[in-house]
């Protein structure tokens, strides 16, 4: 998460590690230059504003020293602070220092532009941001150097072509370019503000708003210079510099906000312990202010699952950060969140500390849910394997015993045709018996796995079933398009069992099968006008069907009153 640290020079890095060193340097330089400025007649307001701005920038850098991810912006803040004073070397009597001041006069502003457009991780937001930053340095450094080369001022040590008109032209081009750079910067910042969400927006808003408010007056200052070629008034100069102070102020505000939020988070964390209706993930998400937050529990075997027990994978892509939550040495869970939260380590830490108390329970619950999901999946697999076995047995019956018996039956018929009447009669009786046995075998095969269901679907299979039942059975509705074999079999077996019970026990005069498919569910209802009093006996056929239906995440119910009539219905989720 700490990026590009290698790009920072070793000396600057040591200054950053110990920013306190920058502070006395800035104070001393500010006091020295202020004293020198007053001595050479610089207006007090300018001296006060520049020294205050410099100290403000450096102070903000020091205050932000706890933010690991803000290392780069902090460097730029401190650098800008020191460069404000470098530009003020113009206040010195010495020609050499005056010239350095002239060259570096506006570089601090270019550094601020870079700070804004690379916030917070040091990477440029976009190609336009890179161009804007480069144009800023071009205007400030090259423009400053060009000014020094043509300046008419007697203190200029670099002047090689003292020309008032060249000095004016360069000054106006430079100011015009600076104006464009700030305009582009404001545009990019506003776009960034509008497009960021959640924790990112919260973390960056104070600084970005500070920039939007700070730059316009400096743009007026640059615009005035570009249009008139004249230095603007002291009041405008002082006011525009003073307003830039909103940027370090924004920095400090962002830090103050997160401290405030930590207190708020403590309250929310207390709420974590009093489990409400919302899930732990929702409560953590609210406490941390990250709507994208995901919570993954670690199982004993090292896998991660979400709260409902579904497998979860910890991301390894940039743009998501992972914080592990542990008790002792054992990792209990992982928070997958917006990396911006890493800017608020104390906030995350406070949530982590409190969450640990409830986490173990929640993790165990997630583990149970994961096991439950596995059991359900294996139950569905068992049913599917059983169905496949039934299909195979039906096929074996058809191809084996049935074929041989059929051949015998036909042969008996032929033999009867050739035999004398007495023998023929005996052979035909044998053929009739065999045909009856074959009929029973067919019914058995159909009960094991109905061919018609597999070939033609539920509607056709139920119509055929209704014709075979020795009772008027009406069918209402339709299963619609084909369903999975498991759903079709469950619905078929349910109807078969219910109608068998009706015929055997209900003494009904008619029965009705109703199919209804809506909202991703198939509802099968079998009702009769019989004597009623049916129930789901633990060892009954319907009880076995309930297991089959529940293996498919469905429900089965039996309604039967002593007054008469029985309704067996099942709801099966079928996807569409």
């Amino acid at each position, binding site marked *: 998460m700490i990026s590009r640290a290698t790009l920072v020079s070793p000396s600057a890095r040591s200054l950053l590690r110990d920013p306190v060193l920058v502070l006395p340097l800035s104070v001393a330089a500010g006091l020295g230059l202020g004293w020198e400025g007053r001595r050479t007649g610089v207006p007090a307001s300018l001296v006060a504003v520049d020294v205050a701005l410099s100290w403000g920038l450096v102070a903000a850098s020091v205050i932000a020293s706890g933010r690991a991810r803000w290392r780069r912006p902090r460097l730029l803040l401190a650098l800008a602070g020191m460069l404000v004073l470098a530009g003020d070397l113009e206040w010195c009597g010495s020609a050499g220092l005056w010239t350095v001041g002239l060259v570096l006069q506006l570089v601090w502003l270019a550094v601020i532009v870079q700070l804004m457009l690379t916030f917070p991780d040091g990477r440029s937001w976009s190609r336009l941001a890179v161009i804007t930053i480069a144009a800023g340095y071009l205007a400030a450094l090259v423009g400053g150097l060009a000014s020094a080369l043509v300046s008419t001022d007697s203190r200029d040590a670099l002047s090689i072509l003292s020309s008032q008109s060249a000095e004016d032209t360069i000054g106006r081009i430079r100011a015009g370019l600076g104006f464009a750079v700030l305009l582009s910067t404001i545009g990019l910042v506003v776009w960034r503000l509008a497009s960021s969400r959640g924790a990112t927006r919260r973390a960056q808003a104070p600084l970005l708003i500070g920039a939007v408010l700070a730059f316009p007056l400096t743009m007026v200052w640059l615009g005035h210079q570009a249009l008139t070629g004249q230095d603007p008034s002291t009041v405008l100069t002082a006011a525009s510099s003073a307003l830039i102070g909103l940027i370090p102020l924004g920095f400090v505000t962002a830090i103050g906000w997160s401290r405030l939020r930590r207190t708020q988070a403590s309250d929310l964390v207390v709420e974590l312990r009093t489990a409400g209706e919302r899930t732990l993930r929702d409560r953590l998400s609210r406490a941390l202010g990250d709507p994208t937050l995901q919570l993954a529990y670690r199982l004993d075997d090292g896998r991660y699952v979400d709260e409902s027990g579904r497998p979860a994978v910890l991301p390894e892509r940039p743009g998501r950060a992972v914080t592990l939550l542990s008790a002792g040495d054992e990792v209990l869970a992982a928070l997958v969140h917006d990396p911006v939260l890493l800017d608020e380590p104390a906030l995350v830490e406070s949530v982590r500390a409190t969450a640990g108390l409830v986490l173990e329970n929640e993790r165990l619950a997630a583990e149970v849910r994961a096991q439950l999901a596995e059991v359900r999946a294996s139950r569905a697999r068992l049913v599917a394997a059983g169905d496949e076995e039934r299909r195979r047995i039906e096929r074996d019956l058809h*191809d084996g015993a049935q074929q041989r018996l059929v051949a015998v039956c036909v042969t008996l018929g032929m033999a009867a045709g050739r035999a004398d009447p007495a023998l023929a009669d005996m052979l035909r009786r044998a053929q009739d018996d065999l045909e009856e046995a074959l009929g029973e075998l067919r019914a058995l095969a159909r009960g094991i796995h109905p061919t018609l269901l597999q070939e033609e679907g539920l509607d*056709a299979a139920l119509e055929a079933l209704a014709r075979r039942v020795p009772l008027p059975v009406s069918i209402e509705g339709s299963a619609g398009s084909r369903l999975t074999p498991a759903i079709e079999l469950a619905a078929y077996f349910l109807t078969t069992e219910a109608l068998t019970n009706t015929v055997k026990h209900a003494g009904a005069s008619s029965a009705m099968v109703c199919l209804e498919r809506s909202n991703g569910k198939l509802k099968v209802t079998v009702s009769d006008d019989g004597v009623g009093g049916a129930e789901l006996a633990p060892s009954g056929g319907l009880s076995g069907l309930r297991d089959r239906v529940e293996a498919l995440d469905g429900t089965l119910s039996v309604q039967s009153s002593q007054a008469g009539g029985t309704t067996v219905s099942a709801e099966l989720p079928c996807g569409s």
Partner: protein
Amino acid sequence: MRAMPIRVLIVDDHPEFRAVARELLEEAGYVVSGEAAGAVEAIAAAAAQAPDVVLLDVVLPDGNGFDVAAHLSRDPSGPAVVMVSSREAEDYGRRVAGCGAAGFVSKSRLSAATLASVLA
């Protein structure tokens, strides 16, 4: 009675049924033009032998008898198709009526009389 005997092609993947069917048909005065054990073989044999009747099993190892029947029925001068199966017609629902076959005979009830009634 027709002067020419009726020529029948037997299509079934079970050789024991083909044998008993051949015996039954020949005894009843039919001529068995040939036998086929699969759907592809059946279509080729029907084209080559131009039988008057095809006795066609529903379940074939390389396809479905109903599809073969539908294919053969497309030719108006083609053979009359009689579906046979060890299952019953109601096990196959509407497909029996929709495949273009002249009729369906359950294998165990196959005899000269049932065949003649279907072809009548």
